[in-house]
């Protein structure tokens, strides 16, 4: 097992720089998820760690060794690809044992490692099939088995679940997490799906346009997003953002609605700010769990409802902006109904309207 360090890592394609001097320290045995919208450089970063992309600047260290100029085979890593990348002309058994075969291990060693991996991933009955005869989920498990057999210091996952259907994805997510708990190895995992990131990660790295926006545990990035990008990217439904101005120590929205400044945030009089509140913290009176010390109330007209069973999502308009709110213990709500909503200010956020950065003290 090993630590991974990225030091000012840059990736350039010709004059185009796609990863801008990022720094990241990954502890031994840590499960780190790189997440971001497509084109944010997360896969490129992973591929630089793997050695499949040349590093244009900075250092990548694995286990204390600078690996910049080492080919992938000398980096002691395994990678699971989005499209499984199995060898179609080999059976599952051969696929699993291929890396050991290449490394000239004895047949007995190979068999032992293959059987062990097959056992962990319940692939034993499939060992003599070829990838073409497997379902997507089974192929994904073979791809993971191939990674396990190498017994690497670091596992790299490149969007491994995005080709699976929703149900299978949930299942495999749990399997990957169990696998990590069992093997205790360092994992770097790339996904564009924030739910995968939240559920799997010890720490999440949120990337945008080749920069790291924020690094933190799932709860840290959920509760204390550093800017509006992270605030809207993490969490479902995304955080509601409302533009306003600070007036008389309060936030005033375009239509004159005023809300108190949430505790723990600083403001300048007259500053343009963005007010952020998640649907979980804005609920109709009587259908909420009021917990905070600092509450506020607003009246809104409901435009659209999405009943989900245990809760209903309400789409309402506040100061000209659509806001998603949650209703617990839902009752039927008809379109155009005017309701009073409670806002839990303790859980609200303030960002600078211009830079998008948090105003947290």
């Amino acid at each position: 097992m090993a630590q991974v360090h990225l030091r000012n890592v840059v990736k350039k394609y010709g004059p185009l720089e796609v990863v801008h001097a990022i720094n990241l320290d990954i502890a031994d045995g840590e499960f780190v998820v790189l997440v971001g919208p497509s084109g944010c450089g997360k896969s490129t970063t992973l591929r630089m760690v793997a050695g499949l992309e040349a590093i244009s600047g900075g250092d990548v260290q694995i286990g204390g060794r600078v690996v910049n100029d080492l080919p992938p085979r000398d980096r002691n890593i395994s990678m699971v690809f989005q499209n499984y990348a199995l060898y179609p002309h080999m059976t599952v058994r051969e696929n699993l044992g291929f890396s050991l075969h290449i490394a000239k291990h004895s047949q007995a060693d190979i068999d032992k490692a293959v059987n062990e991996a097959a056992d962990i991933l319940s692939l034993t009955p499939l060992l003599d099939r070829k990838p073409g005869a497997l379902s997507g989920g089974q192929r994904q498990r073979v791809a993971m088995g191939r990674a396990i057999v190498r017994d690497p210091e670091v596992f790299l996952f490149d969007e491994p679940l995005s080709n699976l259907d929703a149900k299978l994805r949930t299942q495999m997510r749990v399997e990957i997490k169990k696998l990590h708990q069992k093997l205790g190895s360092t994992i770097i995992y790339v996904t564009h799906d924030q739910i995968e990131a939240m559920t799997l990660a010890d720490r999440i790295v949120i990337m945008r346009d080749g920069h790291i926006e924020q690094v933190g545990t799932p709860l840290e990035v959920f509760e204390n997003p550093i800017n509006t990008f992270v605030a809207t990217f993490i969490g479902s439904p995304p955080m509601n953002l409302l533009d306003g101005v600070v007036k008389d120590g309060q936030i005033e929205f375009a239509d004159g609605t005023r809300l108190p400044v949430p505790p723990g945030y600083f403001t300048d009089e007259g500053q343009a700010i963005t007010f952020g509140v998640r649907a979980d913290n804005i609920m109709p009176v009587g259908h909420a769990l009021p917990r905070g010390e600092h509450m506020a109330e607003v009246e809104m007209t409901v435009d659209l409802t999405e009943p989900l069973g245990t809760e209903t999502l309400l789409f309402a308009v506040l100061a000209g902006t659509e806001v998603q709110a949650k209703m617990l213990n839902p009752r039927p709500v008809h379109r155009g109904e005017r309701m009073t909503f409670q806002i839990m200010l303790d859980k609200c956020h303030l960002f600078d309207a211009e830079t998008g950065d948090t105003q947290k003290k």
Partner: protein
Amino acid sequence: MKRLKLPQWLVLLLPAIIILSAVVLIPLVLSLYSSFTSYRLTRPDSIFNWVGLFNYEKAITDAKFWAAFGRTVLLLTVALNLEMLLGLGIAIMVSKVTRGQRLLRTMMMFPMMFSPILVGFQFKFIFNDNVGLVNNALQSLGITDTAIPWLVDGNLAMFSIIFAEVWTSTSVFGILILAGLYAIPRDPLEAAKVDGCTALQSFRYVTLPFLMPFIYIAMAIRSLDVARAYDIVQIMTNGGPARRTELLWTLIGRTGYVDARMGYANAMGYISIFLAIFFTVYFFKKLTKSRQELGMGM
């Protein structure tokens, strides 16, 4: 009045049946029939002189026929393997080129754009012992001062023919293998890199299995081509010297049209067809198998 009433399906198929009979069926039956006669082009009535299996027996016991047969197999084996290796090499190099690849691909096709007759004349000139390019070059460079009899010495003549054959047709392999290289998914190659493969091992274990179907398609096409080889040989050596480069179809052509013994020529032709069929079936079987291995179905 009662008109002849044919069933509708027959009426609809009749044009096709008539055309196919005229261009395929009748010539085929006629040639097969004539192979059992002593048919000579110079004596048309000899086509009715039934000799049974005489022509076939004669062919099978004819050393000249088997020598030509063996030479054709040799040409097929050597030329196909050389073309495959060279084509593979060229395809891999072209696929690595980043700038001007399109131009290179077009240039690869040039040899295929010439008629084999012209290629034959060209190489006949190139290998000519007096005025040929090769001898002139060798002599000017001081490597030799004798005129090497490229087309006159039996072994050298075979070499020259193989050289010409390889020159014209390597691009068939080159183009098809290049298409195969483009079709290889990137992921398994990257997985192989991570799995510890060197470039050579990646090629051996991943690239090559993906290329095999393409190689076998090229082999099947080219085996048919070479099994019926005639034009280049006819022009360059006319089967000579002393029949040292006689191939099946130069022999058959000579027997049929020069010696006018068409019955015997047809009999040899029917035996020779099996060679082409054998190689085609062999390579198609290999093709199917290599595709199955890749999980590409039949």
